[in-house]
């Protein structure tokens, strides 16, 4: 099976859970900016969470299906059409061989995901299919998709359309983004550390898969802005000599020479990634133990969401449809067809 790219969005790339065995050799993780959204898109198509899918920002692109396939788009509400007919986000839908599929624009979110049953089946590079743009690893020659690409799609059992019980709420800047102090918080004086949690920060337009620059409050490192390089994780809040904080994201390098005042709690990193440019928010300091508790609880909640998917097609719950059920005589209880009617 395959999917032809007729038109690609400005930044549509193949992503999965990323590379996690080669950081000691300088290989960044890459992978989805919003992993829960990727996992949901995959689950809606019956894929394993780590299957590769398309990540896009703004517009996803226009595609032609090479075979009948089941697709789903998550990350945010998105305009999607199949042969000109609108289909919903957060719900798997069927595309027939030869159909044209348009993805975009995404609303109220930054990173969208389109999964296809069977997964995008490009070869693994260093254990993952995720694209790292700067080092040209994975995906299609390590680059964003372009018109004319043909994406191989894995074989899949014919699945049914699914949706979650509740559509995930858009990322909100109302709640603070939680952080754990360190590793170099002692490079900053008490006043600066207080500013970190009292100031209002703004998501600047300088953002990509490597980092998000924050405006609103410059931070000065009393001990200087150069350290002997040490290890980095996505979520690290690095403060270079300009004083402008940078939150490192999925494509971040493995090592760096700027002090890192704090690290975004893993539970809140996908939410930060999805905040629109110009959004304002605060940081809230939590202990490492608390951040771990939050991560554990969030993963349990997400597993529950994936385990509780219900058949899609609520839109078809019309009297005509119910009548057809009765006429067919096979199914008397619409809930058995539709799943949860809440």
């Amino acid at each position, binding site marked *: 099976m395959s999917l032809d790219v007729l038109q690609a969005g400005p930044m549509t790339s193949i992503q999965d859970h990323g590379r*996690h*065995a*080669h*950081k*000691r*050799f*300088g*290989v960044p993780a890459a992978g989805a900016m919003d992993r829960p959204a990727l996992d949901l898109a995959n689950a809606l198509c019956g894929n394993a969470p780590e299957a590769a899918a398309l990540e896009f920002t703004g517009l996803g692109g226009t595609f032609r299906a090479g075979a009948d396939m089941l697709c789903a788009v998550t990350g945010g509400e998105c305009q999607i059409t199949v042969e000109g007919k609108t289909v919903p986000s957060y719900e798997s839908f069927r595309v027939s061989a030869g159909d044209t599929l348009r993805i975009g624009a995404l609303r109220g979110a930054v990173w969208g995901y389109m999964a296809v049953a069977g997964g995008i089946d490009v070869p693994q*590079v*260093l254990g993952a299919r995720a694209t790292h743009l700067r*080092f040209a*690893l994975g995906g299609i020659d390590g680059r964003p998709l372009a018109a004319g690409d043909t994406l191989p799609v894995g074989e899949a059992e014919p699945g049914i359309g699914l949706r979650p019980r509740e559509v995930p709420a858009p990322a909100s800047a109302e709640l603070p983004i939680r952080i*754990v*102090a*360190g*590793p*170099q*918080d*002692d490079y900053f004086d*008490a006043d600066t*550390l207080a500013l970190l949690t009292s100031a209002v920060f703004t998501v600047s337009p300088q953002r990509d898969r490597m980092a998000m620059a924050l405006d609103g409050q410059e931070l000065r490192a009393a001990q200087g802005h150069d*350290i*002997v*390089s*040490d*290890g*980095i*994780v996505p*979520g*690290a809040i690095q403060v270079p000599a300009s004083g402008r904080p940078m939150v490192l994201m999925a494509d971040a*390098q*493995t*090592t760096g020479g700027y002090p*890192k005042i704090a*690290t*975004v*709690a*893993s*539970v809140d990193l996908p939410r930060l990634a999805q905040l629109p440019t110009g959004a304002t928010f605060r940081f809230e300091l939590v202990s*490492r*133990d608390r*951040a*771990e508790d*939050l*991560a*554990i609880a969030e*993963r349990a909640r997400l597993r529950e969401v994936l385990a509780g998917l219900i058949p899609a097609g609520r839109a078809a719950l019309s009297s005509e449809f119910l009548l057809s059920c009765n006429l067919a005589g096979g199914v008397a209880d619409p809930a058995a067809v539709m799943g949860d009617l809440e």
Partner: protein
Amino acid sequence: MNSGTTPENGATDDHSGAVRILPVGDTAMTVQFGEVVDEEVNRRVIALAEALRSAAPDGLLETVPTYRSLLVSYDPEILRGAALERHLHGLLDGLDTGAAPGRLWRVPVVYGGAAGLDLEELAEAKGMSPEALIKMHSDAEYRVYMIGFAPGFTYLGGLPEALHTPRLSTPRLDIPAGAIGIGGQQASINSVAGPSGWRFIGQTPWRAFDPDRAEPFLFAAGDRVRFVPVTEDEARAFASPRPEQENLS
């Protein structure tokens, strides 16, 4: 405010104070042995990475050795940070840095040429002939302190002081893979083409990183490197990369 903790036994190093374990969010921590570029500090970083490899608790994901610290990633659903910290303290108590020396690589280098574009200017600035600079660079033994910045990018310590050279204020855009660099007191073997503010004096035909090779990465932190001057013809004929001596540890 100090987010680090020190081991109960007060383990210290002679170079820059106590070992500290610093939180890196809820999925990693940094074991910091010092804040300087120092061979003994780096030896302890590598020793801890080795000790963790042979005594890896469930939930330990991966480690990243750097000049002076070891980043340790974990899955908090399986291994809580507090438990990992206790495990690390136990390993630090009995840390053996007397392990066998790392693998020795003799790396062929064509000095000068298009990739070694700074050779002549650098020699002139140092008041020596290009030949003398090449001899000084290739007589030294280097230590791979860490792999970082880019896949396979090899940071080397052991550059003779006479060759220390500040970085350029404006990076050059297209330095090729295999370029042999000098940045401040450090030396490098560049692994991927890209921009760099370092000075470059030659190029090795070896590729420190090749994702299509059975062993994608040649060098690892703790290895030793010596450079062997070769002609372009010799470089073409040079055997495929392998270390001269396997690590016996």
